[in-house]
Every structure is written in C-alpha cells, then in structure tokens.
C-alpha cells in the first residue's frame, strides 16, 4: 500500500489534506460572518462586497494567484505587513496554499450559507427574542443551528474545491515538494512529462477517495442534523 505511492507523493497527499482542512476550517467563521452580512446586512458597499466574494469564481485561478502573489507575496503590501507585524509568512509556504484554497472556495462556502440563511424562519428568531435572548444569542442558539445544513454543504464544497484547486495555488506559492506541492500540483507536474499519466491517475484516485470520505462524512452529519428537526 505504501509503496503504491512514492514518499514524495504521500507527502503531497498529506499536505493536500492539511491545506484543505485548514483552508476549510479557517474560512468557516469569515464565511458565516460574510454570508450573514450579505444576507441580512443593509450597509453601504454591500453589493461591492458581494462582487468581491464572487471574484475568485469569476476570474481564472491564475489571475487570483497572481493577485495573491502581488498582495501577499513577501514584497506585497499585505505580505510585508503580515510578516513584519505578525511574523506570518504566506508566500511559498503551505499556509499560502491554504489561503489560496480558502479564497477560491470562499464564494462557494458563502453562497451555501446564504442560501440556508434565506430560508431561516425569522419568526423563530423573533420568538427567541421575546424569550429574552439578545440578538447575538439568538444568532448562536437559533440561527446558527438552523443553518447547519448550509454550513455543512458549504464546507463540503470548500473542501472539495481545496482538494482540486491548482491554478491559484501554484501561481501563488509555486510547487515546492513538502511545502506547497499539493495533489493537484503534483498531478500537474506529472501531466507535463512523458509517461506521467500513471502517476497523475494514482494521485487523482487518492484525491477522489479522500473527497468521497469527506462527502460521506458530511452526508452523515447532515442527516443527523436533519433527522432531528425535519423528521
């Protein structure tokens, strides 16, 4: 089993998993906040924010990668700020790959949560309010549990996207084995040389297997959530 993939490929698999998990979990809170703001907020610039969130979907991944490179690279404004103030370096690190994946999956995450948020019965939130719950509590005790299916769906999409994301990642953090070489990057490398198809296929297979596992887990969670209150 282990010799079925080379150690380097195993590294890529582990890294991909790590990147996808970190990307998904790190974008969760901002995703919920963003979805809430876009769906419920009535502030100036909401529409612009909406467009911004969708950009990674609309633009070719390479462009997003370039933008990240310019913004979060060592010499970019955000990159240097982060490095100087917080000692966080993203460029050419796996954290950068996670950022790229998070950003590429963000519109999917936000959309799914918004869609759930739309269908939340505001009357239940009102009811919670009359029972003494401060709006913040209402959000945590009523709204959040009710949008759980959307959150799960969004996380699945974001995770799957992270497992497959390539263009932005390779452009932003390159393809450094052990640091930034994720499964898609490794697959890409294989497709660039003669005789690489086998390796590409093997890795694609692993990627699909991981995603199946993630899908099943999410379906299981969603069913648990739903069984309860839509029985």
């Amino acid at each position: 089993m282990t010799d079925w993939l080379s150690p380097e490929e195993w590294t890529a698999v582990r890294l991909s998993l790590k990147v996808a998990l970190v990307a998904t979990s790190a974008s969760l809170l901002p995703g919920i906040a963003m979805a809430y703001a876009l769906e419920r907020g009535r502030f100036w610039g909401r529409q612009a924010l909406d467009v911004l969130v969708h950009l990674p979907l609309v633009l070719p991944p390479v462009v997003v990668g370039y933008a990240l490179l310019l913004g979060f690279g060592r010499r970019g404004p955000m990159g240097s700020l982060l490095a100087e103030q917080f000692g966080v370096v993203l460029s050419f690190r796996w954290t950068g790959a996670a950022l790229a994946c998070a950003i590429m999956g963000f519109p999917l995450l936000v959309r799914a949560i918004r869609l759930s948020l739309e269908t939340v019965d505001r009357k239940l939130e009102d009811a919670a309010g009359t029972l003494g719950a401060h709006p913040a509590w209402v959000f945590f005790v009523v709204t959040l549990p009710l949008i759980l299916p959307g959150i799960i769906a969004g996380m699945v999409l974001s995770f799957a996207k992270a497992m497959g994301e390539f263009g932005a990642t390779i452009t932003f953090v390159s393809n450094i084995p052990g640091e930034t070489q994720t499964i898609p990057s490794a697959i890409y490398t294989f497709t660039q040389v003669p005789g690489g198809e086998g390796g590409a296929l093997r890795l694609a297979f692993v990627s699909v297997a991981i995603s199946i596992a993630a899908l099943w887990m999410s379906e299981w969670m969603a069913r648990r959530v739903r069984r309860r209150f839509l029985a």
Partner: protein
Amino acid sequence: QARDVVVFAAASLKNALDDAAAAWSRESGRKAVISYAGSNVLAKQIEAGAPADVFFSADLDWMKYAISRNLIRPGTRLDLLGNDLVLIAPKGSAVQVSLRPDLDLASVLAGGRLAMGHVDAVPAGKYGKAGLEKLGAWNGIKDRIAQTENVRAALLLVSHGEAPLGIVYKTDAVSEPNVRIVGIFPEGTHPPIVYPVAITQDSMHPDAAPLLEFLRSAKARPFFEKQGFKVLNTADSGS
C-alpha cells in the same frame, strides 16, 4: 544549513531533472527540492521574492525577463540544454510532409487542426510559429491552429487523434508511442531552443553552485539525453 537547495524548474524538465538531482544527492549527500511550473510563473514568483536558489527556464525570454529585473546572479547563467522542434502525427497516420520552404500544410490538414502550444505564450508555440513562418506555411494555416496551454496538451491532442498534426518538442514526441514524428524543423527555421539555468540574485545557499556544476558535468549528461534533450553546454566542452 537546514534548508535544502530550491530549484525552480520548467515543468517539462521534470523527468530528467528528477533523475539528475537524485544522482547529485547520492553523490553529495545533499538534497535538492525542485518546484516545477511554467517558466513564466516561476519567473514572476522569483520576482515576488520566492525562496528559489536556482532558476531553470524552458525558454530564453523568461530568463531574460529575470535578468532584466536583477533577479539573477550575474555570470551564473548557463544555456544548458537544447531541444528540437518536430512535426508529429498520430501513430496510424500516413501523412508525408517534408519540412521545406513553400510548405503546404493546409492540404495535409484537410480540414483538421494543427495542435501546438500557444503561439504567443508557450515557448514551443513561439518556436513553431517562427518555423512555419520561415517555411512559408504560416499564413495558410494560421486559422487552423489549435493552441494549447502547454506543449503537452498539443501532444495529447495528436496522440488522441483530435488533431491530425502537431508541433511539439522532440523530447515529448519520442516518448509518446501514439505519435509518429513526421519531420524535424531544420535548424535556423526558428530561434534556437534553449533551456537556460542560473542562480538567483538572492540565493545564499552554498549548494546552489555545486548543484549547477553537477548539472553541467558529464555525470548529469545521460539523464538529459535519455529524455531526448541536447546538452549544449557541459563542463567538458566548456563555454
């Protein structure tokens, strides 16, 4: 030094460079980490401060780009490898074309498309366009070209019979059993196909120079030649 030396190399070099780097590791006990991507991406990344010690480009333009932005340590650039440009057809195809001036590819294509790398963006495409222009065939077929993101995709189109003809590197063609080399573009029909390698300006890695030295040594030569590259510039031949 905790960190291994980092090489940014064009993706098409993977097989050869992996083997050569492994050999170097065995010999020196050091390790090289190689990041493969498009030359353009790599150049831009180095510009953005990538931790690359060595840049191994698939064409001259992006090396020149890097040099012009002071990203390369002066005097370290070396035009290490060369390649040939070939016209290919699917294995079963019976087409006969001789790559001479007044070439008439349009009739050979017979409504099909000529697959090649993007003529402005992909090195193999640029070379191919130059070659076709030189042979007088460009104007006749410039609307019949299927441009691909990289040269491997062009190979793919031909090997799967989507395109009756394609222009790729010899290195790609020889290793693909489903295609047949129809002809080789004569020298001089296109700018020389060169794979330059250099140490980056910011690199302070002590292994960078030894690695480069190894790559140009006779010990590395078989790995490149095995993949079909021409080694232009070895330590023995000098430059």
